[in-house]
């Protein structure tokens, strides 16, 4: 039986399309109304943007191998969302500053992760888990009750509202972002080095790659990207609260996995993560529209995820 080679991102995209078509057939679905279908599709993708951006950093650390993962992404998102909220306070002029602060704060947290992982030999799972606690603790200290702030009009305009051809700014931002990620991963020395250390760190070092530097930079970059994610999220929702970032965390890992990046590192792409983010958003949104108690919804989500990974998340058999 010959196996047809579909690259994982394409497979995920096909899956998303199939699911979307199926959703149209449901009672609440768009049926044969193309205008509604288009609107719904756009909405799904728009929702997926935020998960997708947050999952970008996750993609990088997972590719870097050695059980790379970033469990602090959720709390970084919340923190930078709050910082943005407070800094901007409704003023357009402060938006750029807020963005830079978000990136910088995320980068610093990521760097701390990187230092613990690289120099103190703490496993990424545990280090980033610990840092997420520290960041959350910091948020509570800052939050001390409520924060006052406001999102600037320009943010809402760029992110939440339609920008070009009725396509929300967020989606356009994402597409540009996706292209930049591709460029970074496939057309820079750093990207090549990242894949290399994900496969084999000894070979990498003996071939001249600065493994330590690459590792540190990756976690720092992942933090910055999570910061960017927080900036976008608050621009979209306009409100902040302490659990803002948490719901994005594990789905970001799932998005990376569904998108075909090997969780063991050394192979993958951001296109895959984007497709994975769309698939996951589609599933959760489908389940939300269907009338069912929260408990059943959770079980169905779990079951669906399980089926998904059973199909194309399998690892090599022990016996060939």
């Amino acid at each position: 039986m010959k196996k047809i080679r579909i690259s994982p991102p394409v497979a995920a995209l096909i899956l998303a399309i199939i699911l979307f078509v199926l959703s149209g057939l449901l009672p609440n679905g768009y049926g044969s109304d193309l205008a509604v279908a288009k609107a719904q599709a756009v909405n799904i993708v728009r929702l997926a943007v935020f998960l997708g951006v947050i999952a970008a950093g996750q993609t990088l650390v997972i590719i870097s191998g050695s059980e790379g993962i970033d469990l602090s992404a959720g709390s970084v998102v919340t923190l930078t969302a709050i910082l943005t909220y407070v800094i901007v306070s409704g003023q357009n002029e402060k938006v750029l500053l807020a963005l830079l602060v978000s990136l910088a704060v995320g980068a610093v947290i990521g760097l701390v992760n990187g230092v613990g992982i690289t120099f103190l030999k703490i496993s990424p799972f545990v280090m980033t888990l610990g840092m997420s606690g520290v960041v959350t603790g910091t948020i509570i200290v800052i939050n001390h009750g409520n924060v006052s702030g406001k999102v600037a009009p320009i943010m809402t305009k760029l992110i939440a509202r339609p920008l070009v051809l009725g396509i929300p700014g967020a989606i356009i931002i994402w597409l540009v972002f996706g292209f930049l990620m591709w460029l970074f991963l496939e057309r820079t020395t750093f990207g090549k080095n990242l894949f290399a250390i994900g496969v084999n760190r000894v070979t990498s070092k003996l071939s001249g790659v600065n493994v330590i530097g690459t590792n540190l930079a990756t976690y720092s970059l992942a933090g910055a990207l999570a910061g960017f994610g927080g900036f976008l999220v608050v621009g979209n929702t306009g409100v902040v609260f302490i659990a803002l970032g948490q719901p994005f965390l594990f789905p970001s890992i799932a998005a990376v996995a569904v998108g075909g990046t090997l969780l063991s590192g050394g192979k993958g792409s951001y296109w895959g993560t984007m497709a994975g983010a769309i698939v996951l958003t589609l599933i959760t949104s489908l389940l939300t529209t269907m009338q069912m108690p929260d408990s059943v919804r959770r079980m169905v989500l779990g079951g669906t995820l399980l089926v998904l990974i059973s199909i194309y998340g399998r690892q090599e058999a022990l016996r060939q």
Partner: protein
Amino acid sequence: MAESLSAVNIVKRYGGVVALSDGNLDVKTGEVVALIGANGSGKSTMSKVINGVVVLDGGQLLLDQSPVHLSSPLAAKKLGIATVFQELSLIPQMTVSENIWLTREPMTNWGTVSAKQVREKTKELLSLFEGTFKTALKPDDVVASLPPDEKQIIEILKAMSLDPWLMILDEATASLDSRQVQRLFELVQNWKDQGKAVIFVSHRMEEIFRIADRYSVLRNGKTVGEGKMSDVTEKKLVELMIEKESIFEYARMELTAADFVDKPVCLEVKNIQTSTLDDVSFKVHEGEIVGIGGLRGQGQRDLLLSIFGDSRYQGSVRLYGEETNFRHPRKAMKKGIALVPGDRAREGLLYIRSILENLQLPSWSRYGFPLKVGRAKRDAKTVGQSLNLVMAGLKEPVSSLSGGNAQKVVIGKWLMRKPTLFLLDDPTKGVDVGTKAEFYALLTQLCEEGRTILFYSSDEEELIGLSDRVLVMFDGQIRTELRGEALNKENLIAASLGATNGVAQ
């Protein structure tokens, strides 16, 4: 105890790749059969089929003339077949005794493992190889801390503890030095006398002629010849292995060390001191091929890594008179030094990445931003062609290549950068005869172009044939230098055992 095993018309595919299309092998008790073939010929696959590690897609295995089905390594074990692999099946975090007795631990009445019996039996087994280790090997040593040759011996003892009737030694001597190989062959002779059977998979002709009774040659997945060792010559075997009828002689054109004395000094090493090296000093002139010899684990690898900047040392290393102080291989690389490491799977290649990416790994920064991949591909292709690299395409993963071709990628990666000093750690380990000859020609040519080569080899004939002179290391020191007439096998082996000192001509 069984009496014979036959593999008949074995077919095995890995995905789309056919590893074996017609493999055959017969072995009876009391004899040693050599399974010979170039890399990619299907040798390893054959031994994996017989050991139950992989499923066969066609053909049959006959035990005492009746068909058997080996569904797992356990099934093979139960039938009395044990294998010693080259890629070890040891658990690094566990001790020597735990590894040897895994799944067959002697038990107490309480259902726990009897530590006392385990220790005693392990000591018994270890005594079989006594005197061949550098450091005393103890049952409670953690395997991860052992050098490769000792790990290989543990692997052998592990197979022996099964008391099998058929032993498969798959490249088991690759990591061993001459003393250890000698001891192993003494054991093999004992086994023959006891009525056991051995399948000996190897590249080393000299060993094959020493130990085997019969031979079976695989070429491109098919068995192309078998018979008695007494009826065949090395030339004939090589002819069977590769399609071309050529004999490879790798003596360098009568060059001697004296020819190089006037050339500039490329590498000067003075008083190197590390945890394994003891006051090592020597010079290498431009254009020389200097070999490092000696038993394994005498510091050869550490020496090469120190020069390359991957290991801390005290002392001085100078490249063309300039003091180097490499803290990272990257710095050495930029100064024109290249290192081909000893374990290509673990140190030389990125297995799941493409051939292109492996070849360009050190050199991407030359291709600008964004990376000019087209140019990178062209450069890689050129290097591939100059090395006669047999591959399906640059974007295929390196795992699709045979051993010899994979090693070409490791060398090619550095060739791209035209290094001035080439360091090689056992470069032809696990490489077939055809590719070996290509390497020798390549290395010779590089020196004619003015580059310098310093390499370690555990293969005496290779050292003698290829080097202008050999520095023999023992216990972290360079004890002897052999050149000219003195560079012969007896002296080399003697020096490896620490018997001689100084420079012999």
